[in-house]
């Protein structure tokens, strides 16, 4: 939200430039929009360049449109932006190298958490339980225990 407010405030100082018209081929223009949705705007950093109202984002969308018009693949367009702004520019990190951690990390942490809960419950269930001793049958011989003998002696006094 703060990013949007900052973006709108900054935008008021920058006269909005008119972008080039959308590509004639609707499929190609949809691709421009789809690629733009996956690139982070340097001004409104929480937004994609397709959604940001900033001039910077508009210029970057123009670049994407130009590259789509020139027949570049999605990978070539993403590489162009990564070459300049690093992986930071990708709103959806790549599923390779260190960035793979972003995808795998949460699953590993959740898996480790589940394993811990499972281990904890099992360890708890395996602990010997303290069950009260069965009362001695009436008339049964009492154990010969020095301590008990002294307690009984005290009680009888």
């Amino acid at each position: 939200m703060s990013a949007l407010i900052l973006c709108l405030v900054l935008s008021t100082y920058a006269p909005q430039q008119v972008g080039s018209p959308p590509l004639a081929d609707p499929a190609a223009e949809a691709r421009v929009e789809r690629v733009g949705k996956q690139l982070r705007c340097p001004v409104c950093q929480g937004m994609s360049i397709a959604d940001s109202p900033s001039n910077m984002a508009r210029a970057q969308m123009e670049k994407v449109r130009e590259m789509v018009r020139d027949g570049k693949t999605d990978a070539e367009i993403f590489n162009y932006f990564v070459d300049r702004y690093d992986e930071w520019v990708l709103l959806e990190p790549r599923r390779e190298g260190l960035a793979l951690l972003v995808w795998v990390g949460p699953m590993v942490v959740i898996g480790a958490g589940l394993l811990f809960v499972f281990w904890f419950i099992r360890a708890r269930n395996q602990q010997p339980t303290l069950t009260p001793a069965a009362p001695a049958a009436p008339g049964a011989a009492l154990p010969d225990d020095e301590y008990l003998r002294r307690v009984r002696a005290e009680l009888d006094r």
Partner: protein
Amino acid sequence: MKKWIFTSLILVAIMGVLWFLFEERHNDPHAVPFKLSGKAAPAFKLKRLDTGEWVTLDQLKGQPFVINFWATWCGPCKLEHPVLAWGAKQFGGRVAFYGVVNEDSPENAQEFLRENGAAYPQLMDAEGLAGVDFGIAGVPETYFVDAQGVIREKYAAPIDPRTLVAKVGALLPAEARR
């Protein structure tokens, strides 16, 4: 034994998180990364504001040069204009200075330069595409390019005289610095 392994793993994880936080403590989370330092400047072909002639990257190679992206709607750009004008005179003949009017109209730029002086050539990038090629994240931004056309670094803020001298000096051989 199992308890020890488990505790050690938890401790290692906590240490890892603390180390990461310690390493990142000075990093500005809003800073936009720049990956073109040490790489060839992107090719461009832009019109000069005063003469209308085309200027290309190849024409600029052979001498270190400074490229400043700016616009008249940007307050900090106006503030740093005298610093760059001073730098252009100070390093004249050894380092070339160029302004690139980014996302603005020629009329606005001409009016501003009439009032504030045009100490070095200005190139027009009304659509901002050359700026995107250079990896700008806004204006003002100043690029320091060596004689081979390699970007040595960029400065993404209004530049002050001391910083300008240091960064331009780094483009020059020791005997050429003054």
